[in-house]
């Protein structure tokens, strides 16, 4: 896991990835199209970010068919949820530290 100097996880540097993780953290699972709609991004953009999160082991992909249409469902893994919560804690602390320094 790559971590930058301020303790933030590199995998969450992009807002889109943060958005994906937030959406999956509060939902049992979401399909590709719902994610696309919520985040308001293009297919390719979303797919590449999802791929990156999948590679980290943060999201799990499940492919199935609804009738004849392929359907891809995404769920957050336990590892992903832990990493996301740690990221939130670091964000909070950074904000607090900045506030106190002033």
């Amino acid at each position, binding site marked *: 896991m790559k971590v930058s*100097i301020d303790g*933030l996880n590199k995998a969450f540097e992009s807002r889109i990835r943060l958005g994906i993780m*937030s959406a999956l953290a509060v*939902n049992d699972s979401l399909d590709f199209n719902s994610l696309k*709609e919520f*985040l308001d991004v293009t297919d390719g953009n979303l797919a590449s970010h999802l791929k990156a999160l999948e590679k980290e082991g943060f999201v799990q992909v499940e492919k199935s068919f609804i009738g004849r249409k392929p359907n891809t469902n995404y769920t957050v893994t336990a590892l992903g949820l832990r990493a996301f919560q740690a990221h939130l804690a670091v964000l909070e602390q*950074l*904000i607090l530290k900045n506030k106190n320094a002033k």
Partner: protein
Amino acid sequence: MKQERDYIEDLAEIRSMMERTSKFLSLSGWAGILVGLYALAAAYVAKIMLGFNPDEVMYSLPVKGNSSNIFVIATGLLFVALCTALFFSYYTARKRGEKAWNATSRRMLINMGVPLVVGGFFILIMFLKGATGLMMPLSLIFYGLALFNAAKFTYGEVRIMGFVYMASGLLSVYFLEYSLLLWAFGFGVVHIIYGLYMHFKYER
């Protein structure tokens, strides 16, 4: 390295995304107000013009006019109320830049729909068996259960409204002679109060 402002924006984005993807927030206060007014009008027509005022479980429908009139009013009210709610939700969602038919609205509708459909069939069976006096208490109780269930996926205030309906429903089974009044209070007055509250809290 990122600036402090970026961290705050990150957190705001996370919060908004969590809320937007788990709750359907395109309910309109106007729909509540209008549906409440329809219900009051329907209760008035049923009581004053058709003489409908159940006071016992096996209540025989008034002979004034046709007994199917009550049925026409009930289904008509349901249809118009549904159309109003759908129209305003569609409109509100568009104003918020969201789609009305998305993962959250689907989830809310399924959770609301199951108790409503089961209740609907129950009420229909009671009607066919002649237990017309139970129609209004049952509609209050099942609507309350539906709201309680749907509240997990929308504004928290909906849960309180669910409790008010369930309480009115139970009261109206016990005091059957006041069931039309309690029905008018529930579907009329409570909807209007809820609509006004939501409108002033979230839409202005």
